[in-house]
């Protein structure tokens, strides 16, 4: 397979993957799929996925059906407690709870994608209820039509507060939201003029926040004719959004972002690869769920251009590790630890969100990742597996990992996206099964996981 993306046939790229002799459906592909569409698979999920075959496996992650009432109730209760305590820091722990326990991990992954896209930081919007409301709004629209989420964001109090857009007066329109809307949320630089920004700002006049709620301030709304991207009329904010999304740059902009988020960090996808996805978006009312399903089931997705070609974000690392091992831990501490690795949920560094890719990696975060994993493994609040006294040793036994070699292979399959060099594997096997070592087996397994987390291969998703 050629590594050069410009040589890849776009038709082939976006056609649904079908198992073949060269690329059979396998645990490796299933694990990759879970890692990207969700946060990671545990052993049972891997085995189920393999048994189902790619079509059903993809369908299972993309359209798992409505969330169980019990899960929703627990999540709502935890959210309510967090908001009542007024503690924005704990909101991150609440979200991690959802990511860890949801039977619909793609929903949380997409919500995370939108949180980074429509970045809003609790540093400025210091109200848990508002940040929660925004998060729930993004979740509600996560698989929906992009136009709906943009319209909802344009009315979101947290967003408007963050962008200093709580007032927008007819006499002196506030350009802040209009600018970010066009540059970061829908079109990207170079696809509009400064005049367009001013006109879109006019369209949004009167869209304000009063007492933490969105209000449409009729008196302040400019009802004159605006000229946006070559179209004229008495446009309001919703009209402006419609016009922006009609521009061909919009579907390409979103398509490109989705490709980067789900398939590979680098290089930048060539236009030829982006086109079919962009067209799919614009021809189907910008329906995100539909396009994401196509992306996650495609030949390109299951190819070597994609597997292990993203740098694992801190959230994927933490949640992925726990999900793979069926573990749970103190989520407030986990949230803080992920923040130290550069991804503090509800606190993106600025309105551009998290850049991701290689920016997750520096000498301090590399050590930090291994340290966080080490802490997670040893923390008294960390539990594994299905029952209260389940241990790593018991899990290993259930997985048939009864020798050092099998233990290492079991762990590598669950936790690492790409093969590790033989010399490294040897080191891990020795660590797993030192006959002279008196430490208990669970501890030794934990040591192997700790060592794995320091490997360069572990940082890849």
């Amino acid at each position, binding site marked *: 397979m050629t590594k050069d993306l410009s040589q890849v046939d776009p038709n082939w790229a976006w056609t649904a993957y079908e198992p073949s002799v060269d690329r059979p459906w396998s645990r490796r592909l299933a694990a990759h799929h879970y890692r990207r569409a969700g946060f990671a698979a545990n052993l049972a999920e891997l085995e189920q996925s393999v048994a189902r075959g790619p079509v059903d496996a993809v369908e299972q992650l993309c359209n798992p059906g409505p969330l169980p009432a019990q899960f929703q109730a627990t999540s709502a209760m935890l959210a309510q407690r967090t908001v009542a305590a007024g503690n924005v820091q704990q909101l991150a722990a609440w979200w991690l709870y959802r990511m860890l326990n949801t039977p619909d991990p793609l929903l949380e992954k997409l919500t995370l994608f939108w949180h980074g896209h429509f*970045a809003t*930081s609790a*540093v*400025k919007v210091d109200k848990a209820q508002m940040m929660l409301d925004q998060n729930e709004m993004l979740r509600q629209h996560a698989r929906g039509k992009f136009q709906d989420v943009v319209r909802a964001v344009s009315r979101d109090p947290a967003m408007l507060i*963050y*962008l*200093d857009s709580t007032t927008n007066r007819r006499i002196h329109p506030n350009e*802040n939201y209009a*600018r*970010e809307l066009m540059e970061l949320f829908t079109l990207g630089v170079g696809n509009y003029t400064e005049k367009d920004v001013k006109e879109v700002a006019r369209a949004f006049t009167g869209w304000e926040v009063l007492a933490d709620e969105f209000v449409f301030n009729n008196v302040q709304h400019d009802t004159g004719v605006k000229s946006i991207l070559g179209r004229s009329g008495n446009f309001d904010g919703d009209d402006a959004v419609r016009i922006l999304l009609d521009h061909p740059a919009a579907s390409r902009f979103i398509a490109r972002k989705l490709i980067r988020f789900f398939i590979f*960090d*680098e290089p930048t996808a060539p236009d030829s690869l982006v086109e079919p996805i962009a067209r799919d978006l614009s021809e189907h009312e910008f329906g995100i769920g539909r396009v994401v399903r196509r992306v996650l089931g495609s030949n390109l997705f299951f190819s070597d251009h994609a597997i*292990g*070609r993203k*740098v694992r974000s801190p959230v994927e690392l933490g949640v992925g590790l726990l999900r793979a091992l069926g573990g749970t831990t103190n989520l407030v501490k986990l949230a803080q630890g992920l*923040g*130290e690795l*550069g991804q503090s949920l509800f606190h993106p*560094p*600025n*309105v*551009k969100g998290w850049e991701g*890719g*290689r*920016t997750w*990696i*520096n*000498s*301090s*975060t*590399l*050590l*930090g990742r*291994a*340290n966080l994993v*080490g*802490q997670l493994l*040893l923390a008294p609040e960390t539990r594994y597996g299905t029952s209260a006294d389940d241990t790593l040793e018991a899990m290993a036994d259930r997985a048939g990992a009864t020798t050092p070699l099998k233990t290492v292979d079991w762990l590598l399959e669950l936790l690492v996206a*790409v093969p*590790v*060099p*033989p*010399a*490294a594997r040897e*080191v*891990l096997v*020795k*660590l797993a099964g*030192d006959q002279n*070592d008196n430490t208990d087996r669970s501890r030794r397994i934990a*040591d192997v996981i*700790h*060592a794995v987390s*320091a*490997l*360069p*291969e572990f*940082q*890849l998703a």
Partner: protein
Amino acid sequence: MHPNPSRRAFLRGSLSSAALVALGPTVPQFLLAASARAAEAGGESVLVVIQLSGGNDGLNTVIPYAHDVYRRSRPLLGIPAAKVRKIDDFVGLHPSMEGFSKLLEDGHLGIVQGVGYPKPNRSHFSSMDIWQSGRRQIAEEQVSYRATGWLGRCLDTQAANQGVAAHAGHDVPGLHLGSGSGRLPLALIGQNVRVPSVQSLDAFKLEDGGDSRLRRAIQKAVEAPRDPNDELTAFICRGTRSALESSRQVQEAVRRYQTDVKYPDTGLARRLKTVAQLIDAGLGARVYYLDLDGFDTHANQAAAHAELLAELSGGVASFVNDLTRHGHGKRVLVMTFSEFGRRVRENASQGTDHGAAAPMFLAGGRVRPGLLSKHPSMTDLDEGDLRLTTDFRSVYAGVLEYWLGVPSEPVLGEKFNSLNVVLS
């Protein structure tokens, strides 16, 4: 502690020469100077910024002890002339600044007086943003939610000059040694660079629970060769090896670190000692950023301010001395700043309220010593506040150009006369 007469004359002399050197440099000259200095010092120049949070009362720090406006405006807070550590016939240091006094005598302290910016903003949040972003006008690309800081932009430039995309290198370009909040200051946010924020040296340690077997296993597994054609893995692998190596160096250096310099037992001194250890360990960071909080002295200022100044002065003096003993004195420059000074007249609560211009301190083996600019007028006040004599961006420009070797105009967005803050 009074400087001897010849020292005083020297300091007066440097004031006038300093006034002359506040001229813009020609680009080749300062770049050459910066790199020559770096080569001489055996390493690249390092800047240590200490943010004094809350608004430091400059008038009680660098005190115009003889001026009757000072006496009349501060019947309770005014420091008696006899207690002031005199620098010249006009100003002197607060009595608790013994460390700074000694540094001044050694020619290792520079004082930029009257630093501020036009149309001062007296809001903590806004003014701190102005100082940290390095831009007075919050221009379109600088609104709070997408702002960058002057040091972040400087580090971006340095990375670009090295011909390496900032995210392609692994070296820690700068380091924020926080005192608690953990949030990276705006000053250090750049387009491409990622400056880590750490609370302690533990962040540079691979935590292995004391299990050397585990550590050795990790080391060995990371050292195994990888496919060099897989650029992404190779990048991460290089980064991991480099991280393990710096971690080892840092821990080793800290273990071996000997110093006869007795650092005071304060939070700032402890953090500065950590910085000294990191510099000695060879960590590649060009900028360290620390903060000292508590300067917002609206009430009962006397004791609190004295303690803070003692902490600042004692910590920095030990730091500079320690660096000098380890051979790094000439490549480290310390710079202090605060988001504003305080009003000339004391208030009714034995404190002072938000003001405007205030002094900045520079310390290090190559600093241009003495008073580097004029004291603000005590009579021509701006609604009760000191008017600036020096724009803070001139100081930044001087640090950028003469110390860090980076052209200031792109970083600051405008041309400012660079204050020459170091000896060539």
